[in-house]
């Protein structure tokens, strides 16, 4: 808990949200939400997915106009549009990176101050000199002249934060800044937030990680279904009450018990590489075993997953059920019974503007044929298959299976991305950050699903940046470091410390 009493500044709060409401096409997203963030104070905004946190963030940052109610900065009502927030010194760090892939880091950071006041033209040299100190402040290991397209996801997040800090704002809104960062980078961000608070900046911190909320914030605003259900100092809220406030019902504690894995080898990978930094990765997964893959961001876990599934480089030798896999083709992997749940569900997981039914039936479309050889589809059979899949993953779709994928919350979308593979029980399932950015309730459901699949005999490769999740769910845990498999820990020896030691290059 942060020590020292609260030095709440006397004058008007830096950010004041006064009974703001907003609805989309008849469905209310937020309903009369009010809270304040004074300067020198970190207020955490917590809540399940779909509770309205992002809507509030967008209203404060000016990308959205509230239907009713008012947002004011330092007492003055916010001007119209994104410029309004910026002029009154409020910066926003968006979760979905709002960077320009084709511009350089310096141009991205200073996008709204490209020209020095009084100068007629943009000087690239001056931009680089102005951007370098901010980059150092966030601990970025790359220079301001790099083109953003060539940066990794973690590095882009650091640029996003640097962009917010460059305007040295009076108030900052963080929207899940640490979602794609590893432990070391997460620690760095938390230190920056604490430094900001010490400098008297008002911080609104939106996050799913309860330990971050506990460590950083003085007050917590909990939202559920568009309403503020609690606005209390952090010290009064322990983890259990916070979770139940967010979800509104008791949460089963801990992780489901793991079944005993079989001993027949299902997936064996020999010195896998993607032609880039990742090389020489070898491991086996037995039938019914959950093999966790931990490691720092950028250590190559996603690359390993994509290399196995034929989406990236094709160096190395992979066998499924003893049968050698022809490299580099997604269709061969699927034919061999493999499934791949992608990290970026919105762009690689499901169709946002096609009916949900099509996203569910796409993998097994050939099994829905009416007449064997022809391509004819049997709608009735497809409807039965998709409804049975939806119930298998406890999908909650308000508009039925005909509604568009985009109309669903994050948790439900993730269920679809997993559900589409379950028509016939897959032999191997690869999951890349399955529970990132979804709420506690949906996360528990997905964990139960995974364990159920393992029980049914599928072997699972689970990649997650959440240490707690990897430790809780895996029989064995492989730790990646800098593109190599640093070591494999059995469930008994694996603790947070041992994994961190391997992940940061230490010995087993």
């Amino acid at each position, binding site marked *: 808990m942060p020590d020292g009493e609260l030095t709440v500044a006397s004058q008007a709060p830096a950010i004041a949200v006064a009974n703001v409401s907003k609805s989309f096409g008849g469905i209310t997203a937020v309903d009369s939400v009010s809270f304040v963030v004074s300067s020198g104070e970190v207020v955490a905004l917590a809540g399940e997915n779909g509770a309205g946190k992002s809507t509030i963030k967008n209203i404060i940052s000016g990308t959205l106009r509230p239907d009713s109610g008012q947002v004011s900065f330092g007492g003055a009502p916010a001007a119209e549009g994104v*410029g309004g927030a910026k002029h009154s010194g409020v910066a926003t760090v968006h979760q979905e990176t709002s960077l*320009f892939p084709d511009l350089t880091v310096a141009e991205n950071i200073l996008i709204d101050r490209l020209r020095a006041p009084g100068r007629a033209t943009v*000087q690239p040299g001056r931009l680089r000199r102005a951007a370098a100190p901010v980059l150092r402040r966030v601990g970025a290991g790359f220079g301001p002249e790099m083109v953003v397209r060539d940066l990794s996801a973690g590095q882009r997040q650091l640029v996003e934060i640097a962009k917010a800090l460059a305007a040295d704002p009076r108030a900052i809104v963080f929207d899940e800044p640490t979602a794609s960062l590893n432990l070391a980078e997460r620690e760095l961000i938390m230190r920056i937030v604490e430094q900001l608070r010490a400098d008297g900046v008002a911080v609104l911190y939106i996050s799913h990680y309860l330990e971050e909320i506990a460590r950083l914030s003085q007050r917590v605003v909990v939202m559920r279904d568009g309403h503020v259900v609690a606005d209390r100092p952090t010290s009064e809220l322990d983890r259990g009450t916070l979770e139940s406030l967010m979800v509104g019902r008791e949460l089963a504690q801990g992780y489901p018990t793991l079944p005993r894995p079989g001993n027949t080898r299902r997936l064996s990978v020999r010195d896998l590489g993607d032609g880039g930094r990742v090389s020489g990765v070898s491991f086996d997964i037995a039938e019914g075993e959950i093999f966790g893959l931990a490691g720092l961001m950028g250590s190559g876990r996603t690359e390993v997953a994509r290399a196995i599934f034929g989406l990236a480089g094709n160096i190395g030798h992979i066998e499924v059920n003893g049968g050698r896999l022809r490299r580099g083709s997604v269709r061969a992997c699927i034919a061999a019974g493999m499934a791949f749940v992608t990290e970026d569900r919105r762009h690689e997981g499901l169709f946002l503007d096609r009916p949900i039914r099509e996203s569910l039936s796409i993998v097994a479309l050939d099994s829905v044929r009416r007449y064997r050889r*022809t391509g004819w589809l049997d709608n009735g059979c497809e409807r039965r298959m998709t409804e049975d899949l939806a119930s298998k993953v406890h999908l909650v779709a308000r508009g039925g299976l005909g509604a568009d994928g985009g109309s669903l919350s994050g948790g439900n979308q993730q269920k679809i991305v997993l559900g589409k593979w379950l028509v016939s029980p897959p032999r191997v399932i690869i999951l890349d950050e399955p529970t990132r950015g979804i709420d506690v309730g949906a996360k528990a459901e997905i964990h139960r699903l995974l364990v159920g699949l393992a029980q049914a005999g599928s072997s699972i490769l689970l990649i997650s940046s959440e240490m707690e999740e990897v430790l809780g769910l895996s029989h064995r845990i492989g730790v990646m470091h800098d593109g190599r498999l640093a070591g494999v820990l059995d469930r008994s020896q694996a603790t947070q410390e041992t994994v961190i030691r391997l992940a940061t290059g230490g010995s087993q």
Partner: protein
Amino acid sequence: MNPVTDIYRRLHAATRREPLLPVLLVLLLALSVTYHGFASVTNFRNIAVQASPLIIAAVGMTYVIMTAGIDLSVGSMLFLAAAIESSHPVVGLPTAAVFAVICATGVGMGLVNGLAVALTRVPALIVTLATMQVFRGAGGHITGQQNINLPANLRGIGTGSLLGAPTPILLAAAVALSGGFVFSRSTFGRYIQAVGSSADAAVNAGLPTRRVIAGAYALAGLLAAVASLTETARLGTVQPSIGQGYELTVITAVVLGGTSLFGGRGSIGGAVLGALILTTVQTGLVFSGTSPYVFDIVRGGVLLAAVLAAGARWRNLAQAAGLVSRLVTRGTDGPTA
């Protein structure tokens, strides 16, 4: 650092930025060697004069394509500007006044495109497909589909010369240089690339996306009008078939220059070089005396080569070759596979 390596380093940096430079030089060299009349100052001057309107229009088109848009109406804008120039009240004005009126018309036409693309969500291809026919019709209305001769003062732009160089070349050079400067050194230029690179991020960053997009099309309209001034001045008359099919030639030049049709990536210098290469190829064909039918085939081939070189990464090419062979061996099993 002795001068030779310095010049070599700067040349190397230039070619890395503009991969087309060596291609143009090699092409000119090859043609000069094979055809004796080719390698003369008057011929190079001719090529430059013929390429000037294409360069001017290509710079405008690069700005539009950079915002991930497209402008099919550049040919019709060329014709409408020429029609207005030859219409009764305007043709009598002094040259400077005509120049101003035509530039204003260009900006007006460009704004029609720009506001339509920026304000409504109609894709740029459709907006400009529609305005292409509207401008062509308006031009026909004004000229009544007649051939109208231009007075001598208006022809001066095309045939006169200033400081020893033909005015079209000076105009094209001025447009290319200022276009490049505005693109790299002005906020408008940076915003153009930003909007094309990622529209969502532009909204998030609070950039004036609508104004930037409208500005790009307005600039393209202005440059189409300037190109029309040089073009009709050289021709001497305004005829209904001016500018027909011109948009495809301009887009070919811009794509040749390496600008990506997905937006965000591109270079003004590339478009200028693309235009010069296209015109040089055209002149080369006349010199080679090949049968007239071959012109279109060569133009299509050059565009395809440029697109293949830019689009396909070499690794991708090897992978593609493998795929094609497998595709062929397994035989395309028709649509109901």
